[in-house]
């Protein structure tokens, strides 16, 4: 029984890391007032570039950095359109997703079936990993997972306890007021969009370097969209992002569990649907409950311009 729980828990955490990283990034982006629906595309770019850099360099840090950077660079395309050109942010984000899907499908062709140069395996943390159950679940993970653990409180601290975070939140609430205070709204929004891209890129790299090492077309399977939904569920708070991501991971883990024990209590296809159904359900819950009060940053998706 304990082994089963440890198994499910470990896989659940493992399956939630990509969504968590992408959600954290998107929270920062949206807090500054930019809606980036291109997360799925940026994740794919991160996955492909991370994998490719791994093959070329064999260095896990270079691979993860390449993935993060790929996501960040794509995010800058969105920033240019959304912040500088002030186009419809939904459309620009969708275009970015399509661009990411197209580019990776196209450039990734030669990498299909190639042995990954880097595999980020579980690194047990001495001491902590010996704690019964908890150790198995949380401290037998890969380095990127530990990074995600650290990023949760860091993002929270950044947003709520630093001057930069104050400016970010203010930019997402009332850009005109921030501008009047002599703060460069454009720079904040560019930076936060870039950070969001880094988060999505890392999430993608996690998938191709650690979760399912290797490159497969559309290997993100909608996790970028799940992440955007989880931002709403988290009501734009990095600490609460953990809950959404873990729920997603848990339902994904159930599939593996039932497969592993060869039981079919619930048909496999229903299990496969569950993470998506859950994501829709949590959005319904948050809208029927707290979301009614807390509708997110007031200036989300609204471009800022000084004259007119």
């Amino acid at each position: 029984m304990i082994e089963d729980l440890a198994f499910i828990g470990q896989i659940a955490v493992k399956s939630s890391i990509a969504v968590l990283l992408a959600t954290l990034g998107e929270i920062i982006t949206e807090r500054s007032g930019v809606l980036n629906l291109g997360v799925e595309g940026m994740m794919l770019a991160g996955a492909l570039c991370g994998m490719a850099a791994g093959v070329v360099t064999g260095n896990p840090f270079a691979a993860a950095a390449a993935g993060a950077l790929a996501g960040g660079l794509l995010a800058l395309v969105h920033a240019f359109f959304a912040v500088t050109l002030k186009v419809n942010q939904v459309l620009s984000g969708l275009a970015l997703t399509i661009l990411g899907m197209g580019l990776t499908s196209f450039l990734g062709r030669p990498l299909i079936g190639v042995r990954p140069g880097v595999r980020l395996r579980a690194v047990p943390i001495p001491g902590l990993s010996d704690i019964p159950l908890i150790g198995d679940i949380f401290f037998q993970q890969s380095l990127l997972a530990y990074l995600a653990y650290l990023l949760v409180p860091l993002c929270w601290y950044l947003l709520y306890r630093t001057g930069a975070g104050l400016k970010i939140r203010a930019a997402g609430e009332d850009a005109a007021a921030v501008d009047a205070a002599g703060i460069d709204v454009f720079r904040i929004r560019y930076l936060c969009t870039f950070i969001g891209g880094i988060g999505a890129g890392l999430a993608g790299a996690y998938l191709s370097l650690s979760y399912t090492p290797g490159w497969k077309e559309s290997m993100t399977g909608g996790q970028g969209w799940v992440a955007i939904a989880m931002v709403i569920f988290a009501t734009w708070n990095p600490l609460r992002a953990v809950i959404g991501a873990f729920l997603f991971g848990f339902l994904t883990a159930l599939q593996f569990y039932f497969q592993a024990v060869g039981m079919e209590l619930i048909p496999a296809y229903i299990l496969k649907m569950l993470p998506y159904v859950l994501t829709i359900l949590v959005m319904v819950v948050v809208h029927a409950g707290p979301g009614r009060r807390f509708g997110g940053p007031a200036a989300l998706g609204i471009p800022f311009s000084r004259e007119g």
Partner: protein
Amino acid sequence: MAWRIEKRTLSGERAPWWVFPAALFFAVFVGALIFIGLGVNPLEAYAAMLKGSVGSFFHFSEVVVRAIPLILTGLAVAMAATMLLWNIGCEGQLVWGGICAAGTGLFLAPHLPPFLVIPVTIVAGAGGGALWALIPGLLKAFLNVNEILTSLLLNYIAIIFMEHLYFGPWRNPEGFGFPGTAQISDLARIPHFLGTRIHLGLVLALVLAALIYGGLRYTRWGYRVRAIGLNPRAAGYAGFSIRRQIVGVMLLSGALAGIAGMAEVSGIHFRLQQGLAVGYGYDGIIVAWLARLNPLAVPLAALLLGALIVGGEQLQSLLHLPASISMVLEAVLLFGLLLSETLARYRLVRRPDAPDRSAAKKETAP
């Protein structure tokens, strides 16, 4: 004389004619850079794409075949967007249209009078898509849940369900392990034209485009939809029920995507199988915005995108480039459109060097 750039003031103004050509030029230009980066002569590549898409009647007929579902999903997206709704779930609605059409063709057709089979298939397809779109519609109307995310996530669920059907209970027992259902009844297949794969779906799509165009302009329903889309507060002041219209428009939008799926199953594949969900739902977004949400322009935009897709396939067979290059070009085209629409928000005005001191009188804009 001096020139300066000035912002246009009103969003409702008709965009200048050059918006679309400029977007196309941008896409062709960026595409050329990509080809050069790949070590391919861009002229050669574009020539191959052109030849492959409009080089012969057969090739062009294939473009039309692709354009049929694109017209329908483009209409679906445009219809929703006219009311400020983002239906990103056309892919899933298309899949449900296909599932219902296949179900009708496989199981219901033998029990129906022959002349009723095709009408019932069409209604089933439309109904399947509409019901799937009803979920995000209701959630948006009554709980204000973001329809972009719900409609999109439902795509994955629809596809998983379809796969379950053709891998599982609906699998063709004589399929030699090939994933897919058995072929649908001959009665449930929609007619083809001119010895090509162009099918009845084209007529349906064009008639629907015209109906929606007219419906938006000449009916009370269309007036309400446009008013809500342009100014929800004014629509509320006028007493229009925004909730009811959201649900109605999502139903219609889903029905259009469902018909696209029905037409793919009953006109092309004749069974439920892998190749049904190939992204026509997502392409519909591009079609709708290329057409600037005008239903009459949707078929033209769909043809362009169809040509891009077929042309991309030609690149694969002629120059051994992955066909997904066409997806990259689609995205670039959409970015190009956003870019040129931004430029169109500004206009160049001439102003005299010396300020005319007598011109203090306020004048209405022409």
